[in-house]
């Protein structure tokens, strides 16, 4: 089991050493700016991070740089978080963006709705910085695994 996984992991690590991958572009949306900054700090070393307090500002930020991963709270001041996820997921230009929910709203109903809307991951607040960083990396590797780069196997 671990032999197969280990082999692949080693390969990916090896490749990224040879040809430096561009940093993962991450957009964090959270009206709780203190939390957003804390999360940003956790992944700053490996990712290019932008932070916005609401969906409107997020859409504006996306016109400047399209993120690889959106991290969003479900409680947003301007639109419903689930609706926002649906919009991203159902728009052809943005549907390949990874979506991670980091929220204090964590009922089973919220979880199911978020995943059905297109979320890839769901972390319940309060989130430890280390756990957040790991999940970002795992998600990014997962995407590379499921949808291999057109330039390589």
């Amino acid at each position, binding site marked *: *089991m671990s032999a*197969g*996984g280990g*082999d*692949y*992991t*080693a*390969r*990916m*690590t*090896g*490749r990224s*050493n*040879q040809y430096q991958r561009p940093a993962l572009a991450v957009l964090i949306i959270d009206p709780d700016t203190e939390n957003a900054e804390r999360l940003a700090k956790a992944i700053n070393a490996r990712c290019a991070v932008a932070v916005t307090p609401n969906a409107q500002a997020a859409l504006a930020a996306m016109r400047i740089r399209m993120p690889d991963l959106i991290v969003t709270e479900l409680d947003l001041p301007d639109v419903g978080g689930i609706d926002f996820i649906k919009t991203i997921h159902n728009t052809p230009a943005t549907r390949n963006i990874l979506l991670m929910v980091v929220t204090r709203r*964590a009922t*089973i109903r919220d*979880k*199911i709705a978020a*995943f*059905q809307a297109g*979320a*890839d*991951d*769901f*972390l*319940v607040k309060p989130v430890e910085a280390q756990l957040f*960083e*790991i*999940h970002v*990396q*795992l*998600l990014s*590797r*997962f995407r590379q*695994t*499921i949808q*291999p780069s057109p330039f390589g196997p």
Partner: protein
Amino acid sequence: MQDQENERADGERRAQRVLVIDDDPALITLISEGLRLVGGYDVMIATDGATGLERFYESLPDCVVVDVRMPGLNGYQFVRALRGDPATMETPIIVLSALAQDRDELAGMLAGADTYLFKPVKIADLLAAIEKAMMLTADKRLERKQWLSGNVSDYTPAEGGRS
């Protein structure tokens, strides 16, 4: 032996519960019968990911066996739903899938599965995987997650080979 005697002496001790989630009814029947008869587990079932998540919170099983390809909420999403919540992140999870390539296995592990098994699965293999997953500690899971995410600072990639 000792365990069996203890079990008999302590009537309140319940059988361990396994939740099986798969959209193939024939497979669900086969697996749940096997887990019940051979493994002595209480088995709960769900035929899609969303129902599986509801069942999980209703019954808080000791272990979950989940398929990857399912309508609505897939197996990867199901695993992450549990792994992202401190209340459920240490749940033993076996991913069972017809997707039998190495990269599918890696994807399952990256999503947070404890073990990835290919279909068709032998009941003996599934039982062994369940037992092993239930013995994993939080430290072990964290260690593996760090390794898979590349966050282990002293980790050195294998030399040579395919690149």
